[in-house]
């Protein structure tokens, strides 16, 4: 039959589906542990997973599924974001109306916008929870130090995503947020002016001009922020996200307490690199581990206690993804994304409040733009990012709060951080600040001594004190991180609920003056 040329062709045509499948997927149907492992190992999209997973990593209480949930939120944001781009127009004359169209005319537009907005808010909240989980289980230590830094970068990028995102509707919130953001970028001028430097050294103006493309907020600024939101930030975010996930595996998987390793299986753990013959390579599942050399986190680890990633890990991930979807969809159905009035350059809203995650910063900015908007956030991000390098104590990873001593430091730090944060808000509200006491005081002194800078210094001193007292850098790190979390929560609460018109203090919204 295949004797004639044409016969051969038809034979190939008949076998095309099978041969195409064979060229696409080299292993057999995923019916056994071995073929499933091959599928995870050989598939571009699945190979981010190890072929086998330790059961400890799969327990809900190990990770609370926070990282996978964040990836899910990111995927939801990309998909809904692309859908919103179908109708959104980045022009000062059209942007607001196009959002209104999305809200009121476009089929499912309001729902998709709600989901996009909720996933974005959840992402900020979940990053903080994810960071707290990693921190309190000491999972940033040893080989995972760099991944903590990568995570901090992703945190900052996520905040940039959020900021550039809520500018796009060109409503009152958007317009005044860009104005304030651009002026924060220009706030080094505050220092230049206080020092009496010449106009050419006002680097703040250059930063502002780069951001706005002009000296005032307008069309140029909108296009730039749109470019950031849909192009530049994703282009930077995605590779770092890839590195962050890749490093989980390369750094030895999820942090877990040392168990009792069972004797290693035959040939596993051999450090010697050896060439693998091509015909043998197909039969290898985790044989590649044999060529890993040096101080890799994987060497010497036992595989006998692990379970195959397919189905156990993939199933857990799908579950978290579906739960995240459910959460976003439910929130999107229940609460609509807000749209303020059309941008009005003559009248800011009163009070003009940023979304909740920036209200802690807004609270600090209300003391000094330079300190609250640039210096303190930089110190916080760099300080938290360097924790793995300043605390190098060997620690049983995967244990919450590092045991009883850690829990004691946690409790005392919560109490200290609460008292310090409440004091930093209460004193200026009750007694005013330096300018009220000494009207002619130099701006330089206010830049150095204001409630925001003093609170940051108090937190830093507290953790140094804990290191000194307990002779443990890990406990000092717990103190610092706890102070950061408590400070963030309290300042966010004050900014959200206790500030009214003209950023004045009110115990309740009911006390706001009526206009």
């Amino acid at each position, binding site marked *: 039959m295949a004797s004639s040329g044409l016969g051969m062709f038809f034979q190939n045509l008949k076998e095309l589906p099978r041969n195409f499948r064979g060229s696409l997927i080299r292993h057999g149907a995923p019916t056994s542990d071995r073929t499933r492992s091959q599928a995870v190992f050989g598939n571009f999209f699945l190979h981010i997973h190890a072929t086998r997973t330790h059961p400890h990593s799969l327990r809900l209480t190990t990770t609370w599924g926070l990282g996978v949930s964040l990836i899910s939120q990111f995927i939801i944001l990309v998909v809904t974001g692309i859908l919103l781009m179908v109708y959104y127009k980045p022009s000062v004359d059209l942007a607001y109306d196009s959002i209104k169209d999305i809200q009121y005319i476009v089929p499912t537009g309001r729902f998709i916008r709600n989901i996009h907005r909720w996933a974005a808010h959840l992402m900020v909240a979940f990053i903080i929870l994810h960071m707290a989980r990693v921190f309190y289980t000491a999972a940033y230590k040893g080989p995972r130090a760099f991944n903590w830094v990568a995570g901090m970068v992703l945190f900052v990028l996520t905040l940039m995503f959020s900021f550039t995102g809520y500018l796009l509707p060109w409503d009152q919130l958007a317009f005044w947020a860009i104005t304030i953001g651009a002026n924060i970028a220009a706030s080094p001028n505050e220092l230049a002016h206080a020092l009496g430097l010449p106009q050419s050294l006002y680097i703040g103006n250059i930063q502002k001009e780069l951001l706005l493309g*002009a*000296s005032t907020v307008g069309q140029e600024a909108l296009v730039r922020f749109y470019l950031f939101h849909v192009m530049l930030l994703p282009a930077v975010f995605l590779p770092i996200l890839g590195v962050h996930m890749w490093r989980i595996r390369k750094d030895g998987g999820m942090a877990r307490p040392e168990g009792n390793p069972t004797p290693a299986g035959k040939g596993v753990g051999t450090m010697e690199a050896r060439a693998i013959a091509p015909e043998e390579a197909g039969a290898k599942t985790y044989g590649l581990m044999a060529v890993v050399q040096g101080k890799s986190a994987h060497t010497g680890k036992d595989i006998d206690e692990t379970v195959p990633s397919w189905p156990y890990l993939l199933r857990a991930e799908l579950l978290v993804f579906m739960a995240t979807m459910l959460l976003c969809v439910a929130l999107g159905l229940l609460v609509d994304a807000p749209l303020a009035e059309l941008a009005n350059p003559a*009248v800011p809203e009163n009070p003009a409040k940023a979304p909740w995650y920036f209200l802690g910063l807004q609270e600090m900015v209300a003391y000094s733009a330079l300190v609250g908007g640039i210096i303190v956030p930089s110190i916080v991000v760099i300080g938290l990012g360097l924790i793995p390098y300043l605390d190098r104590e060997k620690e049983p990873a995967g244990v919450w709060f590092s045991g009883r001593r850690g829990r004691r430091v946690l409790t005392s730090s919560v109490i200290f951080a609460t008292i310090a944060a409440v004091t930093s808000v209460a004193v200026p509200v009750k007694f005013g600040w330096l300018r009220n006491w000494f009207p002619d005081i130099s701006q330089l002194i206010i830049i150095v001594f204001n409630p925001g800078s003093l609170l940051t210094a108090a937190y830093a001193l507290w953790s140094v004190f804990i290191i000194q007292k307990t002779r443990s850098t890990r406990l000092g790190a717990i103190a610092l991180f706890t102070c950061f979390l408590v400070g963030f929560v309290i300042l966010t609460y004050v900014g959200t609920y206790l500030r009214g018109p*003209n950023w004045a203090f009110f115990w309740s919204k009911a006390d706001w003056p009526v206009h």
Partner: protein
Amino acid sequence: MPGRLEPDPLPRRDFLGLAGWWAAGVAIIGSVLGMARLPKPRVLPEASARFRAGKLDEFTPGVVKTDHEHNVRLVATEDGIAAMSLVCTHLGCIVGESSEGFLCPCHGSRFDQDGNVIGGPAPRSLPWLALSQAADGSLVVDKGKEVPQGEFFVA
């Protein structure tokens, strides 16, 4: 004896290799710097900072006029006319009038009638702006030019 004054001669192959690395490095850094030049505009796309605030003879002593389009407040007194910017020196919100002077809605900066800071985060007082007279008799405000506080314009 090789040393700092008489170093070992560099082999030609190493020299060419190093030259290649440096050339590639300089080319990449140069093009990155060149590209970084693009986002900084040479011409700012905006209206002139000078605008006409009205006919000069409207501003008899006692007249107070707030220009909401340009966020400038003009005050005419016996001493002359003064213009003050209403853009908060903290982070650029527009201040509103209050009993003691001006209040910023965004972060609570407080200014007195002359624009001096009396509270809140503003680093400096509200700037007074340069005034001039156009040929047609209107009063021209230059938002880009500051004058010392207390300097009134007399036509």
